[in-house]
């Protein structure tokens, strides 16, 4: 059985200790490193190249989003998961745009935390109503002109996001739309990818505008 090599970047010692203890109880996971800043996080990524990076967003020397972007710009194979406190949806959404694959809620029970990590590693894509609404807003009110946005949501995807924002589960959505559960989750993953593509394009355009790129 393969194990996932996990690195944790969390500056709160209690949360960090809890996560370490929790993951150590699972045979599928191996903790490679634990650190508490962006700088040390980058070192871990360069030296250890973990399979999974659990990253907190609020770090003393910057934002965990920098580590997520580092993974993308250096084309690392590391999966970034955001450690989120309650009501961090806005920051989580930024992290998802930057390339994070999912998020776990640190205030959830241990079982739920493990379940969330496993769901993401299994290819799932958790999405709360607030994040679904953020995604809808993002696609429907883009910062660039509509014709400049490379990825747009399909009608089905918009419907799914609306149901998600209203609190429906993926299973309930599949029943309402008379499609399979797998189709719904695939759509959600595709929405994530589109979000990240658009985000990268927008970043490039903005950088070009302000002269960072020739």
């Amino acid at each position, binding site marked *: 059985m393969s194990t996932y090599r996990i690195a944790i970047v969390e500056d709160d010692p209690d949360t960090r200790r809890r996560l370490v203890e929790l993951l150590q109880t699972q045979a599928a996971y191996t903790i490679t490193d634990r650190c508490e800043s962006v700088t040390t996080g980058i070192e871990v990524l360069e030296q250890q190249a973990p399979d999974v990076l659990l990253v907190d967003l*609020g770090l003393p020397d910057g934002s965990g989003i920098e580590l997520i972007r580092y993974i993308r710009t250096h084309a690392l194979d590391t999966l970034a998961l955001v450690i989120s406190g309650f009501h961090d949806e*806005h920051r989580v959404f930024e992290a998802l745009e930057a390339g994070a694959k999912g998020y776990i809620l640190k205030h959830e029970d241990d079982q739920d935390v493990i379940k969330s990590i496993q769901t993401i590693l299994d290819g799932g894509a958790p999405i709360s109503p*607030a994040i679904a609404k953020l995604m809808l807003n993002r696609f429907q009110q883009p910062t660039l002109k509509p014709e400049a946005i490379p990825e747009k949501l399909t009608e089905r995807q918009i419907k799914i996001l609306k149901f998600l924002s209203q609190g429906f589960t993926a299973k309930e959505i599949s029943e309402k739309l008379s499609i399979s559960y797998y189709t719904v989750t695939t759509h959600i993953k595709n929405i994530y990818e589109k979000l990240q593509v658009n985000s990268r394009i927008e970043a490039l355009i903005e950088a070009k505008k302000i002269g960072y790129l020739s």
Partner: protein
Amino acid sequence: MRLMENSAFQMTVLLMVILLCSAAIFLPSRHYHAINDITPTTMAEVSNTSPINVAGSSWQAVELPTDWSHTASNEKTRWYRIVFDAPGQSNTVGVYIPVIAHHAVYYLNGEWLAQTGDIEPRLERHHNAPQWLEFASSRLQPTDNEFLIELRANTASQGLLSPVYIGQSSQLRGAYRFKQFIREDWVQWCTLTMYLIAGVLAIFWVNRRKETVYGVFALAMFIWATHNLNLFVHRIPVSHRLWEAMTMATLGWTVVAILFFDFRFLQKPSPRIETFMLWYSAAGGLFFLIPSTEWILALGYTVWDGCLVFLGSYALVYLMKAYHSEKSFDAWLMMLVGVPILLTGLHDILLVNSLWPRTDGLFIQYSVIPTGLLFGWFLIRRFVQSLNVAEQHADILTEKIEEAQVQLTEQFAHIKDMELKNLLSAERERIMRDMHDGIGGQLLALQSNLNQKSDAWVDPLKAQVKNTLIDFRLVIDSLDPLLNDIPTLLGQMRPRLQSLLDMNGIALKWDIEELPDDQNIGPATALQLMRIVQEAVTNAVKHAHTPWIRLRTYSTTNSLHIEIEDAGKNDHVPQVTLTGRGIENMRHRAESIGAELHFDHSDSGTRVHLKINDAL
């Protein structure tokens, strides 16, 4: 107006105009009638040599009117003698000669009587002016008075003398004045007017270059007025040769300009004819280079005028085509006006070529009246239409500006409103984050610490902290501008509700309907309705013994509705619990946000119905 636009009527009128003009121009008798019983002298004698101071001049009888173009003589000066008896019972005697060309000196009984202006340096031209002489009857003998006329012309073929009226001046003066008015005075005033019109239109055109019709018409008026000078300018400022060249050229140029006006006004150019007219006009300038007046007249009256007949005929055909193809009212009007021009022009060409009595005088100057009136009306109408269109556009523009101003004002107000909302939203978010990071973090840390203790006395504290966190989350959620619609707000609550229900083995039926986007839910309303829902669900879990709970939302006009329904026994509805703290709190919360809370109880379950008024 409808009758005027009827084709049959139009053609009838056109035909009548043709007939009337033709009749008016070609039918009147050229015979010189008596004026107030004074018959004109039609018999005279003519001599090529001067009888003054020369005895024995050779006289030949001649009938008046006499036209030198019909004689073979090369003399430019001829003498005419009329012998008459003194008219009875008159103190003043008048001599009225309707037409001469070009210049005359008058002698009575061997004495110089009068002359029509200067002979040197250039012969004055009076070919269009009637002659009037008046003298005392005491200068006459009872019989055999000799009246001599020394007639001079610029060329041997241009001389002309009409019959002569001799009688009481009071009886002849009226006829002379009438003739003078028709032949000269009227033409002078008309010419002056034409120059003024040309000037005004030229100024207009200079300021609006794209309105070529005004420029063309100005040019036509100017050239025609210049041509008219030949009819009343006696003392010409240039040589006879140049004057005749100018007269000849301006006639052709006038017709060309009028045709150009027609083409431009009707917006139907004829490229080939226009090219021909331009060459024709250029050829007109060659008249000024011809060294001989006789050649100017010969070429002008034949070739030049012949082309004018062609152009005039083409113009009528062109207008007829325009009228026929488009039923153009303007084209019909132009034809009406074109007929007099064509017929008077034809008359004048016949006249100058001696195919029509030259004593008739030229007529084409009179066709300027209908031409000027019609084209003037066209231009005024066009100008007024342009003004009307400009006014309409200005009105539309003013309307649009006013609309735009209103929109701008509304948008500005909206922007200000949005800015305020954004400011409030940003401030709420800031408070939310501060609370989340501060109090929230501390509560979580406390919960984490307590969860590590297993003592029994810690359990109530754990429950209290958990409830505090639940309520804290409600407060944080209510402040989040992202959760400003009920479905998303309830969706955000679902995990916590689900967790509670899962723990108690109760299924959750999530029956959330999409609600209108423009929900008017502020933080206070959001917080209270979340607390109501939380309380209702908690109540149902505690007391209903229900296998499921349904959460439903829907909208009606201006109102939003939330229903929490269960299928349990009616345990929590005894009278005492109607006024229980939980229910009482819910009522109080509903009242605080202007909502209505209803409880429907039956044996099959309970439904809590919250109606939020003015939420849309």
